[in-house]
């Protein structure tokens, strides 16, 4: 009798223990499978989302060229097919990285800041920009998936000063994989010179070829340290195109003249005194500016386009809430760049500012969306696209906001 009881006890205990162990083991396998399935779904969603964004112009279809309210989100260039993106729609995306700029100071008017290197500025009223929340809602992923999309030039053209006097500039042309050896390079160097009250620009242009390492050197017969200039280099090889720019200025007490897009629909631009953006102490000089707008032709040449009030004088801080600025208008829907050269009135104190009008003409990178940091699983996908005929790469990072093992700021699901 005792033996039977012990047999029952041992058997029951072992059975229950085995059940528990195997439930755990099977659950682990099932959990892994479910997780894989969810991740696969996120990956497919990333690919779908990227195509949805890149292959639709949105509605209104030309929303990038107006300040219209969006009812459908998409970045495709209206009137074109395939993966050709609108450079103006890309301009209206709120940057998650650039710190917004208030202009004039303490006015409560904030501008989206797409930071550029080398005296390049792109400020748009935040009210005219499309927020990530709006885009997510229009794409139908609000609260279910998060994403971040980055549109970056495939070809990176880096320009640096190799020697100051006489000036030699080093050009490096790289793709994400390898350098672009043997690329054809066209350069446009705009140099400030004084002709009267306002500085003017003088153009030097030419072509060179990159070596097998994707490097070329440009020689100029002037002292780079004592001159103000901006150079744009356009690289091309077998259908791949890229562009880089670099500026050097002799006036370095402040940012100088900063262009602000104040009305996107009409192309109204304010040319602001940097003191009205950030107080660098006083006194600061007046700026006598000369603004020139260039459009890019289909042959990738820069052609000047006359603009209103292209010259002027900007004082700083008028006091009593009054600010001085220059005002001009850029042609709506015509991509190009605005080049502002300015002087302080003192000998050899010049500066230059450059602003893209449509992101393609200066090969500006754009990032839009939420921050993927902290998410357990993110899926990525990429496409090659064109913006203003320039070769770009569109990369999406996507993650789920619902489901098993999902982190959100409050807790784990």
């Amino acid at each position: 009798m005792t033996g039977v009881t012990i047999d029952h006890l041992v058997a029951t205990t072992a059975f229950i223990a085995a059940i528990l162990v195997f439930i755990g083991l099977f659950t682990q396998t099932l959990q892994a499978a479910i997780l894989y399935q969810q991740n696969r779904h996120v990956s497919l969603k990333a690919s779908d989302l990227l195509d949805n964004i890149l292959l639709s112009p949105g509605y209104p279809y030309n929303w990038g060229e107006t300040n219209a309210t969006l009812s459908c989100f998409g970045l495709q260039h209206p009137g074109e097919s395939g993966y050709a993106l609108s450079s103006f729609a890309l301009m209206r995306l709120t940057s998650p990285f650039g710190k917004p700029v208030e202009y004039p100071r303490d006015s409560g008017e904030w501008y989206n800041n797409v930071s550029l290197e080398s005296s390049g500025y792109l400020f748009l009223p935040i009210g005219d920009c499309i927020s990530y929340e709006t885009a997510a809602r229009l794409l139908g992923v609000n609260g279910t998936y998060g994403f971040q999309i980055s549109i970056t030039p495939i070809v990176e053209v880096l320009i640096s000063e190799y020697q100051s006097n006489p000036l030699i500039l080093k050009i490096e042309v790289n793709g994400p994989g390898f350098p672009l050896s043997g690329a054809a390079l066209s350069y446009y160097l705009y140099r400030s010179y004084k002709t009267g009250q306002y500085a003017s620009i003088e153009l030097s242009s030419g072509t060179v070829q990159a070596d097998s390492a994707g490097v070329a050197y440009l020689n100029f017969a002037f002292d780079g340290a004592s001159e103000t200039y901006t150079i744009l280099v356009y690289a091309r090889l077998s259908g791949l195109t890229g562009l880089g720019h670099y500026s050097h200025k002799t006036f370095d007490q402040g940012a100088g003249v900063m262009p602000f897009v104040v009305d996107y629909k009409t192309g109204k631009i304010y040319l602001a005194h940097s003191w009205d953006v950030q107080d660098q102490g006083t006194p600061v000089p007046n700026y006598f500016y000369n603004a020139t707008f260039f459009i890019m032709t289909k042959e990738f040449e820069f052609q000047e386009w006359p603009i209103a009030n292209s010259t002027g004088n900007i004082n700083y801080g008028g006091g009593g809430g009054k600010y001085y600025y220059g005002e001009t208008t850029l042609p709506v829907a015509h991509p190009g760049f605005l080049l502002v050269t300015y002087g302080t009135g003192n000998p050899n104190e010049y500066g230059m500012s450059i602003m893209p009008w449509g992101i393609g003409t200066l090969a500006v990178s754009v990032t839009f969306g939420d921050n993927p940091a902290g998410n357990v699983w993110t899926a990525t996908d990429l496409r090659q696209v064109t913006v203003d005929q320039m070769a770009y790469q569109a990369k999406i990072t996507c993650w789920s906001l619902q489901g098993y093992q999902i982190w959100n700021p409050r807790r784990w699901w």
Partner: protein
Amino acid sequence: MMRTIEVSIVILIFAVAFIAATVFAVLPSPRQISSPNLHQLALTTLQVLDENKALTETVFEDLTDQAWTDLEIALAASLPPNIVYNLTVYDMVQVGDTTTYRKFHSITNSESGLGTDSETSSYLVMSTNVTFTVTPQRISGTLYILNCSDANGWWITGYTGQGLASDLYNMLSPYFNTTVMVQNTTDLGRLLDGTKISDSDHENVANAVVINTFGEAVPIPAGYYTTQGYADGSYAKYAYILGQKVNSYNWTWVSIVGYPFYYVTNTVTFASTHNGWGIYGMRMVSGYGLGCFLRGLDGQPYSYISQSTGDVGVVYFSSDAHTYSNYYGIYPSPYQTATRALPSSIQSTYHTTIVSNMFDAVSNYYGAATFKHTGGTGKGAFTAIGLTRTPDIRVTALALLMYYNPAIYKSEFTLTAGERPTQRLIVLQLSQQGGS
């Protein structure tokens, strides 16, 4: 003891089941779970490389040509470093109804092959000898488009003058040597003074075309033209001055819709007055604007005289308009409603001749036509689109092209008789390396 043995057997069964499930229910590798869509990446890579037809030109080059090396570099540079590729070009040979694909050339950066875990996209290109191109003859004069930021439009409902200016630029600039946008009324004043307003060496004030995109309103510069253009309690004299300028500079003035010169506009000068319909920055001139303009064009002394237009309803394309519509590939509707058509009588009253007529006349009224001044030295012309709102700029473009009639040079196929166009199929195969 029996129970323990039975339970042991059950545990054994569970263990076997678990091992079997683990062995047979293999989870996919992380790469299969989430990998870039290589099919789309391959397709978009080919599309980007062919953005300016560079890829098309390369695949028809001789195999020793540098273009093939450049293509290899461009492929390697444009793809992420962990992606290997194989690009193969096939000749497409058509015999009867059968198309065969013959390998022409292949380039790759993976000598060991791409393995089975790869994806491909194909792209069909046609040889450049069947490319069809159109090159318009350039009209020697300068095209000025009024794009004044300090002006408002009327009868351009749904559009702005600036928006129309941009569209006209895109449509007409290929036909002109130089196109200049007149960005504000100050620039317009300089232009009326005979001064160039751009840095272009090709800009020429004389013999130009000026398109007013503001509909029935015409921008007026502040200062001289506002003071000298005001008489008899109206700005009709400004229209008279415009007529004189059109004559002296031998311009072609283009009105894109409605009653020409019916209003003058300057959002600063007339900031507190409206046109009678609530649009501020505008003053009504009514039909006196057209009458005075035509007197100025004809070199007659200024007189505050009105010129009427006619509401003739539906008008139909003339046979010339049909011909030119096909020639230039501009297709507005062939019938329109003309409520501000100009009468035939202005030919005799103001010494003008209709040199291009877009719509057949109705009761001696012309819905859209160009009137060339023939009196005196015979300079100046006036293209009046007397259609009702809203404007269709294709009508304006076609009317102007009908008047200047620039030739269109179309490329011809270079294929000889019996020769077939050559097509090649490009297949790009991509695969990921590492981390499987």
